[in-house]
């Protein structure tokens, strides 16, 4: 397949956003991309500009890959069409990025890629790159009730039926956290039990609850260690199902440009 390489044009912007969406559809943990965000994040960035955004097209002039390169030596972002010959496109993007950077006198080239992107890993290894750990991403929730509600509504399919009213109690609330809250996840039974005593109470620290949500804390281990307490004891199994339903499903990946 004959592929061509060129610099981006302003009219490419929506296609780049679309490509990013498709390339990272199975991931989370990064800032949502939009035309306005791309403009600010890359085109306005002091070490990039339009000449730092290189795109690859196939014979039908479909945009199948791009790379955003900064003269600071950072490949801020890349995306490759999942349906393209990914390793081949990755090798082209890496070579173009290096060509761009060699003239800028950089000492080291750095980029981020998903751990399980074997096509990119293969292309990078062939080009002489070495992999390591990135800077650590930390997360917490300011509006815990809203986040819990959104996740439970989205993961309703794995919530046990006939749940009744659940209540979360935060052991160490900060000034902006409520001490307790009941997510309005109503099924047939919970609608009628809204004003009664909660049928299940989950008590946890902010850190334990956030840990369960982002996947750094196993629900069963959190309960076994007492970091999360479920009452009444007879509802432990149901409580564990709720905690498992809270866990986010997509792995977290962030591009170098997400590290602000």
């Amino acid at each position, binding site marked *: 397949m004959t592929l061509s390489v060129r610099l981006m044009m302003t009219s490419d912007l929506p296609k780049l956003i679309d490509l990013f969406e498709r390339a990272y559809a199975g*991931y*989370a*943990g*990064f*800032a949502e991309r939009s035309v306005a*965000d791309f403009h*600010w994040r890359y085109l*306005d*960035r*002091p*070490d990039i500009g339009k000449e730092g955004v290189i795109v690859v097209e196939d014979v039908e002039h479909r945009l199948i890959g791009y790379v955003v390169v*900064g003269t600071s030596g*950072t490949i801020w972002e890349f995306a490759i069409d999942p349906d393209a010959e990914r390793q081949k496109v990755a090798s082209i993007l890496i070579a173009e990025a*290096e060509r761009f*950077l060699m003239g800028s*006198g950089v*000492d*080291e080239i*750095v*980029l*981020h*890629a*998903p*751990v*399980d992107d074997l096509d990119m890993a293969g292309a*990078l290894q062939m080009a*002489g790159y*070495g*992999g*390591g*750990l*990135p*800077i*650590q*991403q*930390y*997360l*917490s*929730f*300011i*509006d815990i009730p*809203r986040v819990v509600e*959104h*996740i439970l509504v*989205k993961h309703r399919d794995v919530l046990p039926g006939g749940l009744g009213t659940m209540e979360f109690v935060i052991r*160490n609330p*900060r000034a902006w956290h409520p001490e307790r809250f009941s997510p309005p996840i109503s099924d047939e039974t919970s609608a009628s039990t809204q004003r009664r005593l909660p049928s299940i109470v989950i008590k946890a*620290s902010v*850190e334990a609850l*956030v840990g369960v949500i982002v*996947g*750094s*804390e196993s629900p069963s281990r959190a309960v076994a260690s007492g970091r999360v307490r479920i009452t009444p004891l007879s509802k432990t199994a149901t409580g564990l199902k709720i905690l498992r339903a809270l866990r*986010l499903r*997509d*792995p*977290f*990946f*962030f591009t170098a440009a997400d590290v*602000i």
Partner: protein
Amino acid sequence: MSYSYRAIDDESDPARQTVRDLIGSAFGGALGPSYWDWKFHGDARHPLVFVAESGGEVVGCRHSLVFDLRLEAGLEVPVLIGGDLLVRPEHRGHHVARRLAAGALDLSIQRNPEVAAYAAFTWPGLADHLTRPLVGTVPVPSSTRRWSKIVGWDNRIANLSSSGLLDDAGQNRGVAGGDHTMRMEIEGAPPLWVEIRGGRVALSGAQPASHEVRVRLRRDGIEALRSRSPVRILRAVSNGGIRVRGRPRHLREVLGARRFYTRVLQELLKKPSPSSR
């Protein structure tokens, strides 16, 4: 010393220039004032520049921005990202950093009530002492891998060769009597040859006629060597993070010169400062 804390909202506030200078002196290069201007002016979303002052002078700063964070497909929440925490060295030890971070966080939440999450990219020490007590952050299991390649290898070798460090290391770090040539393959960098003859050391990126020892280092192997922990080094040797090939006599010589090699490695992998590039 007494400190006061405030946000800089006015573009014409002269304290802005002081913050730019502070950022420039702390980070410099690509992360200097122009990078800061981009981040906290123009189309950035809800930027907050928060400063600590003492005697009418800016002595520290903290910044934040708001984005939409994807928690999973179809679920995004506004997230507050804190960064660029700086305190002038002479004002450290007075809890300025903690108050800066707390003040900036409170104000950001007041100004952006829609914010549902808080994120930071930082080091474990700072997270444990600052963001965890403040907002309850936890490390997120990451599917991100950082890849890098040193392209200024020749410059690094030349800088190291001309720094006098090799002579010093050769004299003080036990390379006398251990004549050999080593091919060193460091992940993410072109091969390097180290020649030790009669206590004199030469580094080169050009392949000599032959070599007696070949060492391959992956990133985890380098980290193990840096840690100096025998357990980690042994583990790296057993899982291929450190691979050494050569005749036993030469391997003994390399082992004898391990302090020298660790020092060379340390210097070579140190990113040169922008001014020395």
